[in-house]
């Protein structure tokens, strides 16, 4: 192995860094002005067209934050971490993800669940892996036709029925009057997030915010 001066002088990888500066620089954040619904950059303040449509359809909208853009580098990361199942790669973003979750000061942090069959083959929930705070898991996935979200077109995604149910009925009581933070790995059309948030709102949560690594 070759040692560079940077590493010898201790300015290579920091103690808490999992990737080098060059790789890190490929992950981009969204610059303001942010859409108040999905957190992505928008010219139509305060809501982008997509979020306006959601609001018309449901009468409410999410308050979502995307930490990074879902660009090529992020796609490759998600592919390797989630679909190839390289669990160690959670360390690349677990630091920033955990910090953001803590910043929100929610009473309950709820990850979007993965189906039982995915959990058995993948061996982990990719959302849970990204955060190092206590989580509540009131949601479960209704077992149905097994096809990954990422293989569907935009229209197909928007047309899927409610995929979530309660893991256990008593969770509903716990959520009453609580500030809930819903987290996921990638926000694309928002369909998944809206279904998750709808259930939490029905259960009587005081507020529902959401956060995703990319979007």
């Amino acid at each position, binding site marked *: 192995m070759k040692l560079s001066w940077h590493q010898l002088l201790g300015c290579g990888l920091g103690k808490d860094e999992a990737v080098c500066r060059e790789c890190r620089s490929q992950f981009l954040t969204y610059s303001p002005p942010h859409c108040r619904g999905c957190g992505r950059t928008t010219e139509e303040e305060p809501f982008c067209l997509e979020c306006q449509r959601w609001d018309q359809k449901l009468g409410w909208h999410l308050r979502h934050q995307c930490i990074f853009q879902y660009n090529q580098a992020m796609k490759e990361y998600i592919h390797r971490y989630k679909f*190839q*199942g390289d*669990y160690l790669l959670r360390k690349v973003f677990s630091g920033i993800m955990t910090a953001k979750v803590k910043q929100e000061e929610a009473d309950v942090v709820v990850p979007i669940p993965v189906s039982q069959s995915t959990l*058995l*083959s993948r*061996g*982990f929930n990719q959302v849970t892996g990204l955060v190092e705070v206590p989580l509540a898991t009131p949601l479960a996935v209704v077992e149905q036709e097994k096809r990954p979200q990422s293989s569907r077109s935009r229209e197909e995604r928007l047309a899927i029925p409610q995929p979530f149910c309660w893991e256990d009925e008593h969770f509903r009581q716990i959520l009453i009057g609580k500030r809930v933070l819903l987290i996921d790995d990638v926000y694309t059309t928002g369909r998944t997030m809206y279904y998750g948030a709808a259930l939490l709102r029905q259960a009587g949560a005081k507020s529902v915010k959401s956060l995703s690594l990319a979007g």
Partner: protein
Amino acid sequence: MVLSDYYGRRVLVSRLLTPSRPDITVMPTMKVTATTVRCLRCNAVSSKKSAALPHQQYYCRHCLQLGRVSTLDQFYHAEEPNQFPVQKHPLSWRGRLSPLQSRVSATICQGMNDHQRQLLWAVTGAGKTEMIFSGLADAIARGERVAVASPRVDVCLELFPRLQKAFAGVPIALLHGRQEEKYHYRQLTICTTHQLLRFYHAFDNLVVDEVDAFPYAANEALLFATKQAVKEDGGILMMTATPGPVLLREARQQEMAVSYLPLRYHGYPLPQIDERLVGNWRKQLHRGRLPLVVYRQIEQWTTTKQRFLLFVPHVADLEPIAAALKKTCPSLKLTTVYAADPQRLAKVAAMRQHQVQALVTTTILERGVTFPGIDLGVLGADAPVFSSSALVQIAGRAGRAKERPTGKVCFWVSSCCRNVNEARRQIAALNRRGKRLRNELSLM
């Protein structure tokens, strides 16, 4: 999946399943010890901490690209039954070997018959592929399962049509990581050495082409892959023009039989390297210029319509050089290609079909590929990425065609370096031996 998909392979399936047929055996995926886990596919050992999944499960990061091996899964394996239709004369190639080639070919054929461990050390352009045809043909006629593997996907892609032509009646499977096509059970397989990890005691004879190429050389996992892909009594033939120290030691200790051919098939010597000092070329490149010597040479190639390859040390050098050339030689049609280039295969194909006159590339095209009648330039040949064997291989791209058995090989360096000297020395030595051999032959 059909049963034949499991013949001589290890296929990952969920641990919750049980085989539907008695001829499928179940094998474990990982060996878990107190502090480490060992992947039973690629043999890599990792610490438990880095290989951990939730709930005391483990996975292997080293061979992840082939599909994740984890303790959640198991392997299905069925013993190789050699279930092939009998082919008495599978070889449809009608070319003729030179007397020298025939001699080597016969030795190899015998070695493959005895399932030996062999090394074929022949200069670049000696016609290695043609020399293994008769060995392969005999193995196929005996009903053996055979594979030709190489560390380089470009080499596999070039081998596939050649072998298809030579063995017209034999269905061939081509396996590499960039491919979508489903696996099929075939008597003859061409694959990258990585893909060998999917096989287990499958082949009676395995040929590994360009053994000294990155990433195969000194890669424990790939050496392991070769060993476990052949049957316990299977034969291995390694081929290279530039054997590294490990292979040479094995050969000296007579752990493998060596066939040696220091002469090209057309009998002409290897083109010697023309080394020129160009000073700090990167500094000039920053200003969008190339050294004058380089520029003059390329201008000459452009006016004479001579096709050429220009090798550079790093991917980052490709664009500035292409830009500088576009400015100075606007009539020159060229393109750049590197390992992770999404259009890599298409660009190499364009060069083959004479759609471009030149390729600017990194070391990926150093070996196994033939563009007849090509000239060569290496800018920054003194960079550490060019090992002496890589430089010999690069120089060996030139003068391979019978119609143009010579060629120009220009190495442009900032300073004299050991690797270039070593490469020049090797070529001179090979040419001396080749000359001696030629003289012996003419006396006979």
